[in-house]
């Protein structure tokens, strides 16, 4: 039986605040129910660690990509999940001046065969480029608003040949007309599959309290994320 390559997922968007970190941390924690997983935060804000109740200021991906030691933080109650924080180290120019293959091989060595979820910073740039190069699956997050949707194709334009991609329409509130319209019609204009993740108070509560979604109160958003994992596992 041939062993399937572990998932490697880039979660990206042009606009900030659309829920990249929530989706990335949520997916990583849910993946860790069934496999060894790692969440890598490429954002200087280092919110992923915070959302999971970990140390956002620990030595993180900036150090790892320079070949220095970094903390692989473990999440209480989710033994199979490791988290590598972001932080200002991501902006160290030396990181991006070194040859591309060097940082890519360091990232792969860091993941060491785990399912990898990479939380990209908004706005594109070097970190997103690296994540997109390393990823087998690109998930572009948007919310049901034209200003967020406008960024979708700009991220998809960087997709590698043969790379699977999908759009996640996040924070969907079916009571709102614009949201309903996006859910019904946006997919028609995309050449990749679109998934919806419904807005749920449980999601923001979990992040605010540093609780991984996999251990939080069950909600619609978790069901939606599980459907995305099912698609990626196909």
């Amino acid at each position, binding site marked *: 039986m041939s062993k399937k390559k572990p998932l490697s997922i880039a979660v990206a968007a042009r606009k900030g605040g659309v829920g990249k970190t929530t989706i990335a941390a949520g997916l990583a924690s849910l993946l860790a129910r069934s496999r060894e997983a790692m969440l890598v935060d490429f954002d200087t804000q280092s919110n992923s660690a915070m959302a999971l109740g970990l140390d956002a200021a620990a030595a993180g991906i900036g150090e790892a990509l*320079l*070949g220095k030691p970094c903390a692989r933080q473990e999440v209480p109650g989710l033994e199979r999940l490791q988290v590598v924080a972001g932080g200002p180290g991501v902006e160290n*120019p*030396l990181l*991006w*001046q*070194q*040859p*591309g*293959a*060097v940082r890519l*091989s360091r990232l792969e060595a860091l993941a060491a065969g785990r399912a990898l979820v990479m939380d990209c910073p908004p706005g*594109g740039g070097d970190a997103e480029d690296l994540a997109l190069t390393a990823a087998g699956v690109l998930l572009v997050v948007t919310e049901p608003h*034209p200003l967020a*949707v*406008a*960024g*979708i*194709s*700009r991220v998809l*334009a960087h997709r590698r040949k043969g790379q699977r991609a999908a759009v996640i329409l996040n924070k969907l509130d079916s009571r709102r*007309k*614009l949201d309903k*319209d*996006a859910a019904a*019609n*946006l997919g*028609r*204009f*995309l050449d990749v599959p679109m998934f919806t993740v419904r807005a749920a108070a449980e999601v923001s509560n979990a992040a605010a309290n540093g609780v991984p979604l996999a251990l939080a109160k069950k909600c619609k958003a978790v069901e939606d994320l599980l459907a995305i994992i099912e698609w990626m596992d196909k």
Partner: protein
Amino acid sequence: MNQKPNLWGNTLQASKSLESQDAAAKEVKAAAKDNAGAMALGDILERPGGDTRTIHPDHAESLALSLEALGLLEPLVVDNAGHLLAGGHRLAALRLLEERGKWGKPVPVRVMDFDACKNPEEALAVEVAENAQRRDYSPKEVKALADRLKAAGFKADRGKPKAGERALFPALADIVGKSPKQLRRYLAEAAPVTPEPADKADALQVAEGRLAKAVANYLDAAKGSRAAKVRRLVEALGFVVEELELETKDADK
């Protein structure tokens, strides 16, 4: 509020023009990066298959002195995994300085976008090109470098430097890739001073010595590939010819 029937299609269409701007911006950034790479010294990997040219410890040592005073003026060239492609002596010199606690900075590099392990011919081509075409420094630039070296304690006196002294012209020759004699001429052009007597015997002796060494290397089966040996021989010949030309010009005056 009614949405326009194709609000989402129009939105995506409108962002298309930004996509081409993204692509153009990416190109500009990549081009800028090509000249501004940097790596930690410890991350630079050996040339796959080892050095094609013998690293001369004396040369590395004198380069180390000038690197300490001037920094690395010409970036090393590496492949996309950080294997050295050109700058073996400069790398050896940097390592000497690091051992002595005198180099802690990132090393400027130019990254060539290929893997030397998979493309050995391309790697050799870069090495040869880099060695054959050193940057041509103008007399004015040479003068500026000489001034910085002098400020760092290098002496321009003729003959062997006294113990503890560092000689300006050999150091400058290492950096610029021209003979000490030619450099004296450059400095004279840049800032006319009283002409000094030429050290013909010295320069010719150096040139002959270099040629003799290259011939001995060429005949020694153990020393490197045939291509590298031939190249060294040609380089040495060029050096001797250059010296002879200078002598002839001097004699004509």
